[in-house]
């Protein structure tokens, strides 16, 4: 009876167990990389099945003395994390097959479990533990190839990441002192009743701590270096998974625990969002390394997603508005739903794009020295590796927000919610930024399709191709049939707002 009671958490349990089994088997067997990768992929598919069996859970199910909540929002984020990990595992099957592959897959699974715990946490302790589990596993993953660039990337990621956890923990300790409890609901009650300067200080620390993970300007310094230097498939996990974990945590803590201070964090996020998207897009225009361009573009996308917080701060408790296609919802709910859709879309697009760079790097690495991610290697990619080039083309269009793709749907819902809540300046700035971002996306596309090939046709590796094609189908599917995804995101968003 106990076992059945915990059914909504089987996915986490399964992945944790699988990670331990993989480490154990890996120490007993030699050259078992392919098997371990297959096992991880199978485990992730099973976990995805378990999560989607209660995808639209109507009433939150609470576990472990009300510290873990399985609700619409947590299921949304868990689905995103699992899909990203699955794609990364499939892509890694081409790369990590030899010695040490078991550790790679085990760390990847543990990072996924950490992210899933964060998505479910409604208590500061579980939130922190999940956050650290995901962070520690990804520090190790970023250094996995142990090349010079890898280690530099991992070192920067480690220093900035642990400082951000320390800032977050300091903020949490102040919140505990204020409320006398680590539960988000108790903190919300205490701060609604009365909040002093200590709570404001805590808010600053918490925003700084999450800001590092979300890579918002001015907390973004580590992101370009880490995404460029880490193994490309790990960069995909970082940009699409661990960054979204920052958003999941920030949604819970700011909207559930610190809603009393919404006017304060509304202002902070308005400035952060405007700065982040503008600086991210401007910096991306000057880069010649494709992974660095993608890193800056993912910083810019974090700026767009942060608009969700601004909308909630501006329109919290406002009356429902008539949005597009007959949906009547409060602007705040529409804002969160837009942010969630962009999180889903960006997770897919960025995973795909980084896997594409991994494919290109593995093809050119054999023949030349120098930077494998340099944009000159993408010249004539359409003829050298047609499938990769076409998938990259779709991802670039999707990242720029051109219909019918997942990127467009997310931006459309998010920016229209900004307009409904009276933030026209922010919506205009975001749309101008989307136009600016076309500069560097089109640059990559023109290299791939208009330039003369830099070398002969290359064999595309199977694992990468499967991951790329799956991601492309998902990105276009969300763009062509958005209605069910919008409904899903709206339902997930409702968890964060009072009924």
């Amino acid at each position, binding site marked *: 009876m106990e076992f059945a009671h915990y059914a909504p958490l089987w996915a986490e349990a399964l992945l944790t167990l699988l990670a331990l089994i993989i480490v154990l088997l890996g120490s007993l067997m030699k050259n078992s990389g392919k098997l371990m990768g297959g096992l991880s992929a199978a485990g992730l598919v099973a976990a995805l099945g378990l999560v989607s069996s209660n995808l639209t859970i109507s009433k939150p199910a609470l576990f472990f003395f009300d510290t873990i909540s399985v609700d619409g929002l947590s299921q949304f984020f868990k689905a995103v994390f699992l899909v990203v990990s699955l794609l990364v595992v499939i892509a890694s099957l081409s790369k990590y097959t030899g010695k040490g592959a078991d550790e790679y897959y085990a760390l990847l699974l543990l990072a996924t479990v950490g992210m899933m715990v964060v998505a479910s946490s409604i208590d500061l302790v579980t939130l922190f533990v999940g956050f650290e589990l995901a962070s520690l596993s990804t520090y190790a993953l970023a250094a996995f190839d142990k090349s010079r660039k890898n280690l530099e990337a991992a070192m920067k990621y480690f220093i900035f990441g642990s400082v951000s956890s320390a800032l977050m923990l300091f903020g*949490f300790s102040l919140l505990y002192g204020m409320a006398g409890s680590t539960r988000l609901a108790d903190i919300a009650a205490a701060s609604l009743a009365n909040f002093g300067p200590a709570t404001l200080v805590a808010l600053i620390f918490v925003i700084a701590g999450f800001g590092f993970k979300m890579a918002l300007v001015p907390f973004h310094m580590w992101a370009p270096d880490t995404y460029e230097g880490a193994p490309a498939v790990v960069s995909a996990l970082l940009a699409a998974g661990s960054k979204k974990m920052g958003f999941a945590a920030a949604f819970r803590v700011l909207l559930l625990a610190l809603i009393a201070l919404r006017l304060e964090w509304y202002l902070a996020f308005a400035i952060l969002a405007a700065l982040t998207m503008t600086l991210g897009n401007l910096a991306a225009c000057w880069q010649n390394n494709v992974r660095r361009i993608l890193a800056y573009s993912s910083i810019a996308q974090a700026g767009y997603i942060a608009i969700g917080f601004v909308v909630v701060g501006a329109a919290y408790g406002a009356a429902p508005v008539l949005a597009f296609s007959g949906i009547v919802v409060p602007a705040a709910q529409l804002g969160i739903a837009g942010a969630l859709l962009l999180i889903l879309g960006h997770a897919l697009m960025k995973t795909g794009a980084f896997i594409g760079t991994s494919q290109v790097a593995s093809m050119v690495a054999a023949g030349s020295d120098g930077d494998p991610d340099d944009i000159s290697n993408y010249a004539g990619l359409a003829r050298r590796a047609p499938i990769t080039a076409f998938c990259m083309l779709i991802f670039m269009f999707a990242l720029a927000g051109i219909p019918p793709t997942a990127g467009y749907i997310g931006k459309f819902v998010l920016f229209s919610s900004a307009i409904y809540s009276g933030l026209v300046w922010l919506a205009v700035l975001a749309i101008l930024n989307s136009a600016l971002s076309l500069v560097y996306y089109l640059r990559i596309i023109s290299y791939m399709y208009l330039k003369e090939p830099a070398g002969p046709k290359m064999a595309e590796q199977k694992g990468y191709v499967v991951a790329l094609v799956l991601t492309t189908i998902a990105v276009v599917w969300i763009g062509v049939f958005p209605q069910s995804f919008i409904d899903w995101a709206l339902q997930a968003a409702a968890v964060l707002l009072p009924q």
Partner: protein
Amino acid sequence: MIPLELNILLASTMFTIGLYGLVTQKNGVKLMMCIELLLNSANINLVAFSAYQPNVNGQVFALFSIALAAAEAGVGFAIMIALYRLYGTIDLDNIRAMRW
């Protein structure tokens, strides 16, 4: 009982020293020590607040965070050792191939 203010003063001082060290130091191991200072200042806060609350949540939180800080130091030193093997130094000024 030591007044709460003194505890928080101690924690804030430790936190500030840690932050100052992070900005000024270039040696990888010294940076890790500064990070430990930051984490431990938060632990002092948690335990101090917990003494003035009817529950022990803060102390439990501090225990969790001590364990996590140990794990973090483990991963951090592993990265630093790998860096040292490859670069022959852990002075972070010498480890910057990637800029802007």
